[in-house]
């Protein structure tokens, strides 16, 4: 339960500056909150509401629509097994079943030690590499049940330092230096770009 920390408020304001209207930054800011705490805390949603100047209810309305936003703590590793058609054809459901047995949880559940949360997810765009899954949204391809066991063992023993904490989306962010910016303005303050007018034929 926490608001965004000072460093993230700075980052939040930079993100907000990328959009013509503040509310457009809502989803990226929810990701930022989830990156900070591993889930989207109520206080963080209230803080985001202040930053983008909408009501907390509007933030909750958006947050609750999207599958990636978790409003309660989840395991250290979120394991999302795809069972959609391409994966189903090549053993995705069997892989999920094996994951349930191995971890002792159903999709949506978290292991008692707080290590793993399991999800049964829809297509994650790796269909030629079925069956596949994601760990904290990082892809693993063509997994046998043995591969799954090895993955779980590696995660437990800390061998997968390449997989960041849940909530970390990209490890690189876009930064637009002030002197390189074309100029993002509120729609009311924006007109036809000067370069366009000068480059079009007189009568079009």
């Amino acid at each position, binding site marked *: 339960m926490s608001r965004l920390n000072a460093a993230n408020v700075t980052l939040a304001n930079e993100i907000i500056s990328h959009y013509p209207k503040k509310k457009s930054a809502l989803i990226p800011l929810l*990701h930022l909150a989830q990156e900070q705490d591993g889930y989207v805390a109520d206080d963080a949603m209230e803080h985001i509401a202040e930053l983008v100047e909408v009501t907390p209810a509007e933030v909750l309305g958006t947050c609750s629509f999207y599958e990636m936003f978790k409003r309660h703590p989840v395991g250290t590793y979120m394991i999302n097994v795809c069972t959609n058609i*391409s994966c189903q054809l090549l053993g995705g459901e069997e892989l999920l079943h094996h994951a349930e047995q191995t971890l002792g949880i159903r999709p949506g559940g978290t292991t008692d030690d707080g290590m793993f949360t399991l999800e049964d997810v*829809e297509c994650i765009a790796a269909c*030629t590499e079925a069956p596949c899954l994601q760990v904290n*949204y990082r892809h693993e391809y063509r997994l046998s049940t043995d591969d799954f066991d090895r993955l779980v063992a590696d995660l437990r023993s800390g061998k997968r330092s390449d997989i960041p904490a849940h909530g970390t989306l990209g490890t690189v962010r876009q930064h637009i230096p002030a002197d390189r*910016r074309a*100029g993002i303005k509120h729609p009311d303050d924006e007109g036809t770009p000067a*370069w366009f007018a000068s480059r*079009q*034929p007189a009568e079009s």
Partner: protein
Amino acid sequence: MSSHTNDGHTNDYVPHAPGYVDNEGPKVVTSRFTYEDSFTLERSLATGGYDGLKAALAKSPAEVAQEVKDAVVLGRGGAGFPAGVKWGFMPQIWPRYLVVNGDESEPGTYKDRLLMERDPHQLIEGCMIACYALGLNQCFLYVRGEMPLAHERIATALNEAYAAGYVGKNVMDTDVSIDIVLHWGAGAYIVGEETALIESLEGNRGQPRLKPPYFPAAKGLYYQPTIVNNVETLANLPWLMVNGAEAYKTMGSEASPGTRMLAVSGHVKRPGVYEVEQGVVTFRELFYDDNYCGGIRDDNDLKMFIPGGGSAPWFFEDQLDIPMEGRTVGAAGSMLGSGALVVMDETTDAVKAALRVVRFFARESCGKCTPCREGTSWEEKVLQRILDGHGRPEDIDLLLEIGTNISPGTYPVASFGDAGLDAVPFPPKQTTICPLGPSSVAPITSAIRRFRDEFEAKIDASADGGVAAVDAESEPVVAAAGGH
């Protein structure tokens, strides 16, 4: 080699995601795919990167737009609408926006992620060309949340491109200034629908907007004129600007020039993402030729295939010789959609496969329109009970009737030669705002028309004591069969 991260650490290069197959044939959008460092600015510039933007800036915006129109660049996201014509729908009103649809999540689709991960500069260049042609200075690149590598590589590429003067203020030392902003999705298939994408980009729940206006070109982001283009569509523009519309039209068919990225998954020997000339190569060649998938696994018989993503009605042996392009596939009762082909061999259970696709739509329905919200979950429920051995004789008709409530009239289907049934051309009609609900009808109509006997066998087995139900020892057979 390293890249900057949020906390100041450096990352070694993450290897490419697998899937792309470097087959014989013209390469428009995958020319850099085999380089390990294909996503870097150095590699891009060493292989003609940003030459297309340079060529575009030497022309007037109207000339660039005309080139795209002349080349007949069909949209690669699903509907296959010509990009140049779509652009022409924009009224002379400013500000206007370009929104790039990188929310790839149609079942079976795996191409935009590769384009974003392996060649982000090509996409950025394509965005810049489109912005220039449309006379706008703000572009938003909406990338699916579940694709962190795509985010990282696009963010890095944008940071490089801003610093090197290919994006931002005074592009390539001209007076042209354009911003591109990378935006993060958060897990919602429906956001691939363009008005839902716009709602999402405004910070709202991703629900489609009521039509009319039919095209966001009239009223889109912030109710200003907006073009929404797919990643692959825009990735075609650099090549087009360098080589011209005439050269572009030497590839593919007359109605569908150029290439398509096609992801073939399921029961083939060599699943993969292939760049293929449109309207030239047939499904049979794609599935069986050594240049592509090399045949069905274990040399099994083909049972059915999905030609264009989970939303597409199924095709069968009869349709194998159709050349792959929007027009021919549409006339034959389906769509090439998002270029996602899912191949199913003779071992596949048609009811189970239909259920899985339907379950996807039931889970992803945004809940705005009643026929879809209620209908998709009923379809799932009825299919599930047939599969579980609790089907009722009236269930087949019930499934078809639910479908009619979401998509009235005769639903698009492939011809069925043996039964003397003709094809019903695409697209379906709809009682809903967007095509998600009607898409859920595709697997049901396709499977029932072709494999009604499989549905009946499962239902018959339930009626005379329930073979499937007896198998499930822990199931309370009597209570379940009694229904509610």
